[in-house]
């Protein structure tokens, strides 16, 4: 009936980012006339491996994997080889050589770079505040051990290691979720009174929103404008406009169109780059131009059906 079967293994469906990621993936391939099946690994690497085995035994023409993590999915390229199925990996990477065997391409985000961008903005702000790069920061992280958390940490460290007077004085695992982000912030605010710290870095905008509730509730308004996030969600961007968050990096969840393009090109015999980075954009509120861009971005996202009204 259709042009062929495309199977997609999704890491989890725990946040809006993943939901959009799945929706767009499905839409892209279905509109192009393919049959589309997918499985949700619920953030469990062992389950994701089993999902991939199950999907491959249906002999799809293409397997798209959005890995939970790098290491535990090491067997995937070999499995694709054995099943004689094309493989495209999106978002996070897998061990092995994209562009060899059945693995056509890796379409990814550079998470280390995300960490670097956040850290550089923090250095800039602190330097502005004190006239020299110094200050104390708190860090509310995503799930301990998750690969973006680790990579972004690497990025942060790369930058902060250059400034001996900038220090991360407290860390808490906010598990990428809003409520836990709030609890973490509440506790950290108890540990550090007014004047003890300059700002807080959050591993995503959702946790930043939870942290913002804690800040309002505890009357720690001195921290408004000294929050960093990641993802560039509508609410996050709104917080940038409101001056609560100072900076966020957008990580777009849309890989389907790109994966389709890459696959069809490869099928047509064209050369495709084995590793491709999706563009990302930083959002800041220092200048009017930046503010304008944030407003625009909010509208763009709304047009895509994300965020509201």
């Amino acid at each position, binding site marked *: 009936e259709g042009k062929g079967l495309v199977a997609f293994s999704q890491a989890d469906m725990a946040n809006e980012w993943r939901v959009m990621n799945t929706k767009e993936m499905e839409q892209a391939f279905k509109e192009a006339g393919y049959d589309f099946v997918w499985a949700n690994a619920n953030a469990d690497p062992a389950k994701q491996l089993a999902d991939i085995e*199950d999907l491959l035994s249906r002999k799809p023409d293409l397997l798209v994997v959005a890995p939970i993590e790098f290491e535990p999915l*090491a067997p995937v390229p070999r499995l694709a080889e054995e099943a004689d199925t094309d493989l495209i990996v999106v978002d996070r990477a897998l061990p092995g050589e994209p562009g060899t065997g059945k693995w056509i391409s890796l379409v990814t985000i550079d998470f280390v770079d995300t960490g670097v961008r956040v850290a550089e903005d923090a250095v800039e702000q602190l330097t502005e505040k004190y006239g020299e790069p110094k200050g104390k920061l708190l860090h509310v992280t995503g799930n301990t*051990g998750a690969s973006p958390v680790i990579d972004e940490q690497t990025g942060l460290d790369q930058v902060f290691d250059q400034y001996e007077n900038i220090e991360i004085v407290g860390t808490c695992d906010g598990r990428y979720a809003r409520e836990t982000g709030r609890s973490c912030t509440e506790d950290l605010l108890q540990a550090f009174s007014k004047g003890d710290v300059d700002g807080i870095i959050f591993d995503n905008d959702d946790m930043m929103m939870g942290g913002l509730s804690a800040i309002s509730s505890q009357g720690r308004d001195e921290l408004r404008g000294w929050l960093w996030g990641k993802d560039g969600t509508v609410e996050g961007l709104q917080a940038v406009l409101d001056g609560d968050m100072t900076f966020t990096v957008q990580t777009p969840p849309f890989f389907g169109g790109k994966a389709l393009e890459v696959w069809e090109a490869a099928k047509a015999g064209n050369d495709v780059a084995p590793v491709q980075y999706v563009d990302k954009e930083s959002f800041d509120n220092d200048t009017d131009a930046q503010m304008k861009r944030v407003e625009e971005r909010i509208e763009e996202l709304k047009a895509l059906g994300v965020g509201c009204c």
Partner: protein
Amino acid sequence: MSMNPSPAMTGHGFNWRTFVGQNDAYLALIVLIVIGGLISPEFLTTLNLKNLLSQSAVLGILAAAQFMVILIAGFDLSVAAVMALSSVVFAQFAPIGLAPAAVLAVLSGLGCGAITGAFVTLGRVQPLIATLAMLGIARGFAFTVSEKSLLVDSPLVVAMSKSWGIISVPMVIWLVIAALLSVFLYRSRFGLHCLAIGGREQTAALAGVPVQRTKFLVYVAAGGLSALAGIVLVIRTQSGVPHVGNGWELASIAAVVLGGTALFGGEGQLPKAMAGVLIYQTIANLMNQVGLNPYYQDIVRAIIILAVVGVGIFRVRQSERRVNRAEIGETE
């Protein structure tokens, strides 16, 4: 007696109901497999059966650990965390050599089991809470060993993830463990003592069964088995994964109960519990096979679990109705 002979007391001819009763878990599995074959053309292929068996191996070994603990009327919520710990220990030390790495991994599991066992027996901490605490402890240690997953780059491990027909290394390890343990539990004094402790601890103690020692050993064994599951996980994923297995503690309990084990101890057969694992895993496999939207997969799984356990219980109730009164339900 003249009025109500209990089923087991009447004659020795073949009794259809008794047969179904004694083999319910296997029959449920067969029914599921037949249904699978009918609704999905790929279900009964060699490749898929190999996948299914290999996928079941890790949960299967965890369920064997869980089975022993449930048999003595406990629960072990730490199985998956101990597995994760063992997998990272193994991965961490694999560069030194696979054998020493495996030994250290198993030791880490036995150690966790010993701590749990000591608190349950000497500290009189309820098993549920002791193993819940161990869940945290083992995860903490796992993250301390390695914050992120560790790739095991050994050619041997890669070789072990190959398969021959439906035979894979994880499957073989699982089945060997399950078979040995089944025979051991059925034939040994230790196994009988576990049943007695789970059935009525007070009675076992009065009969001179070394209750505390047996319990302690069960937790140690469960720790060791969980660690073996961790090694099998490494074979499957080529990595040690500190955060793997969230939710598997409840899945292992569900699988064991699907296999007809009494949830509160004292009754059960390991081979049936293993059939329960296959039922659990077959459901997951089938849903992917037929491409069921993941949004509905949890719902379907829930319904099947309820149905299998419900039918099992209904059947037990039917066969025991007559003699219910004879049960002396001492509340203790």
